[in-house]
């Protein structure tokens, strides 16, 4: 949206470039739109004799609303996975309740509207991709024709048409992840739970996963994901809850949480040296403190993605470049990719000056 223009980045939506409509929808969320609700949710793991081992979750109260991407964030062992398992009914709460679509989490019926991608893709190794998806389709009582069509769609979506007849045991980790994602989407769910969705994926896969998550949100689906890849969470989540040692430490809108209130960021391209000096003077005149004024560096992710795209466009050619800023050719295909464009605004910053 704001590829080449000079943007004054103090709007609340810097990191959610997916358009205004979903934002409006989300901000008007009311009580009836609550998809997941945990009330005073606690979980204590006990050993065989009933002795307490770990207090995995302490009095968690969160609400996930319809149409948002909600992130559970925290270090290992902070209770993210426990929360997801409680929501799915794989664990029973020690105290408190979980309501999913206003039903108790242990009810089977709720699963008809849920898709779940487990931490690792726990799938049957002896089935191939097509059989796997067909099997999960059967579990939803889908008709034969429906199943066939849906399996076809999903295999295309996750890019596994070529490997559909190979047993999963032969798959790479990333391919298994894709099948896992496809099985989570087999029933076109309204609520999708993703446990560490990007682990095991290469950067392209991560980018595609993030794009897909955003696309699903745009279709009106609710997504709950948990991750400790902070970048991923920042890129896609609307709201996050940060857990540590089973306790909720922070809950709120990503943009609100991350915004540094008294720093202003300006992006501009084509500024001359004089103009830059003039800006410095203006800042000094207003008594403000100039923290930095530099050419921004692209992220490794951007660099990698550009190289791969370049290589796909012109196979065989070896990319030789001095600096990223002198490579306009790399910028253009990136700008042509609508998905990349929609997913992250910073993708278009490579090569532009910052003042």
């Amino acid at each position, binding site marked *: 949206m704001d590829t080449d223009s000079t943007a004054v980045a103090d709007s609340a939506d810097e990191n959610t470039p997916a358009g205004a409509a979903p934002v409006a929808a989300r901000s008007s969320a009311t009580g009836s739109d609550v998809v997941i609700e945990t009330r005073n949710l606690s979980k204590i*793991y006990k050993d065989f004799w*009933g002795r307490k081992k770990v207090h995995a979750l302490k009095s968690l109260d969160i609400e996930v609303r319809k149409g948002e991407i909600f992130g559970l964030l925290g270090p290992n062992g902070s209770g993210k996975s426990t929360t997801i*398992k409680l929501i*799915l*009914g*794989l*664990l*029973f709460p020690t105290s408190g309740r979980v309501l999913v679509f206003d039903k108790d989490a242990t*009810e*089977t*019926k709720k*699963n*008809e509207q*849920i898709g*779940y991608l*487990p931490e*690792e893709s*726990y*799938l*049957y190794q*002896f*089935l191939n991709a097509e*059989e796997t998806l067909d*099997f*999960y389709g*059967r*579990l*939803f*009582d889908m008709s034969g024709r429906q199943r066939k069509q849906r399996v076809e769609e999903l295999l295309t979506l996750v890019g596994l048409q070529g490997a559909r007849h190979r047993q999963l045991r032969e798959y790479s980790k990333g391919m298994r992840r894709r099948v*896992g994602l496809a*099985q989570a989407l087999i*029933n076109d769910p309204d609520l999708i739970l993703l446990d560490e969705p990007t682990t095991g994926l290469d950067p392209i896969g991560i980018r595609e996963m993030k794009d897909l998550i955003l696309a699903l949100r745009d279709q009106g689906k609710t997504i709950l994901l948990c991750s400790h890849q902070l970048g991923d969470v920042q890129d896609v989540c609307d709201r996050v809850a940060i857990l540590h040692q089973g306790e909720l430490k922070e809950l709120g809108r990503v943009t609100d949480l991350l915004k540094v209130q008294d720093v202003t960021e300006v992006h501009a391209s084509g500024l001359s040296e004089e103009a830059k000096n003039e800006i410095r003077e203006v800042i000094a005149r207003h008594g403000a403190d100039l923290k930095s004024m530099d050419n921004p560096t692209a992220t490794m992710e951007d660099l990698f993605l550009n190289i791969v795209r370049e290589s796909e466009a012109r196979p065989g050619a070896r990319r030789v470049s001095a600096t990223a800023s002198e490579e306009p050719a790399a910028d253009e295909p990136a700008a042509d990719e609508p998905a990349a464009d929609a997913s992250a605004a910073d993708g278009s910053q490579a090569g532009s000056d910052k003042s």
Partner: protein
Amino acid sequence: MNLQPDDFWTFSEWLFRPGAFLESAFLQGVVLIVLAIVLGLLVGYVISAARYGPGEGFYAVARAIRDLLRTDLPGTSPSRIVALARLAFKEAIRRRVLFVVGLFVVILLLAGWFLNPESDDPARLYISFVLTATNYLVLALALFISAFSLPQDIENRTIYTIVTKPVRATEIVLGRMLGFVAVGTVMLIPMGLASYIFVDRGLDHTHYGVVEANEIDGRIVGKTDRVRKHQHTFTIEAGETQGLTNFVRGHRHVVTRHDDGSFTIGPPTGQLRARIPSYGEIQFYDRNGDPKDSGIDVGAERLAGGYGSAGISRLIGVAKGNRKLEHSYVEGGTLGMAEFTFDDVTRQRFPDKIPFDLSIRAYRSFKGDIESGIRGSLTFKNPDTGFSLTPKQFTVEEYQIDERELPLTFEWLNKETGEVETRNVFDHVVTEDGRMQILLKCLDSSQYLGVTKSGLYLRPAESSFAWNLTKAYGSIWLQMTMIIAFGVMFSTFLSGPVAMVATAVCVLLGFSAESIYDTRHFIDSNIERGGGPIESLVRLVKQDAMTTQLDVEGVANTLIKSADAVIVYTMDAVATALPNLPRMVSTAEYAASGIDIFNAVLARHTVATFGYCLLAFLISYFFLKAREIAA
């Protein structure tokens, strides 16, 4: 084959036991299900009370039952069950369980070296071998595939992607059971075919020629050559070109005489049989001719066993003592005899002749003439008029079925006219309502003939051996289904190896049930027979005989005896609750003996199997439902 009293029961007699309802299978089933429900509620409440507190625990149990009846049972979808069953099937197949079929073929090939076709009863040897091999191989396989699958799914967490779909616990349990039963079925079919071929080919042999043939008045009497340690005699009637040999080792051949005077001998026939017997009621008479419940007992065989048929009434102490049917003996040269009364002897069932089989034992009190064997006689008698035919004499052939027949006509000397008339058996020997008696006597004095109810029967029809073998395989299939149900049940709350051991313990307890009943009977009636497990151990260490008093004094004695009583009573209760597997295994004995497996017996096993499967299904459901899958 020695049939026990309950083998003769019809299906409804077994189910309801008219006159002895306490022994009925129906009552046992109801008690088991009620007990399972009560125990289930109790255990469920204790577990949930520990988890949620006493008040909330009650609601948790109530919710589980409500869920089962309101949502889970009605919501159970056949197509999901089929999907899960297909998965279980594929899983087993891709784990290469079909290799077991290959293993079975290898076993058969090896057995070909060791099974001796020259033995006295090769058909029995071959049939019981293939059935036993199949039985134990399939049971072991059922144990392995059923006990490990679900725990492995939980351990690999593949179950996460299943239970987060709208899949109910009922469907997971049923899907597994059906999938594994399908695997077992797919394996049993080729094993059955291989068995049939193996038995059929293994018993086949050819006599190459005739060693002796004499023509007497156009009738040819001869002997075949000696193959597999036996030879036959044969007769070809005058004017015929074909004749039959006698029965040796359960088979005979067709002998054809060619124009040039040479003979060819056909393949063996009649060794693979499925006789359909029609049993009568038996009444013994002692040496003075007074009616008695049983004949003379010449051994200790009947002191143990046969308790199982008493069901619950034995467990609660109403029915006491064993019920084993063993051979009862008739003394020779006295008025002692065994009287068989047959019903439903009609012209429709026996249009040409009345075939009957003898399976009789002999007991010699002195060596006697060892060459000629012990002689007995059979008298056919009309129970109403007392009219009887001339006694037919025979020599006892032990340990094999002696096939005989009664022609429908007999010659009768009319004393008034002095003429010999030809009369019909049905007009004179059989009553209007179709009853006929056969009296069995022993002719050699001080020798004894032993018989049970199944020792003398009419044989109105014959079934095919292939069908009988199929029925025997059906019985194996039922056992396999039962073990799969138990394996899946245990695997819902135990880890794989433990579930397997638990299932195996159930199987072994089922197999040793009669010994446990025996032990309890001996303890109850103060008979010294080794005692319970602790007492037995003490006797083993002290090297004391089983039948002496336990050589331990005072308190220790009381302690040992009481502890044993508790253990034996507990094992008794558990064994009574478990399926009676040995009874199901013993259907193989029917096939091996060449007797058609009674449909009532098969129906009983079927109903019992599905009863136990239902029980296992309910228990599995509650355990799976109450289980934290991710814990």
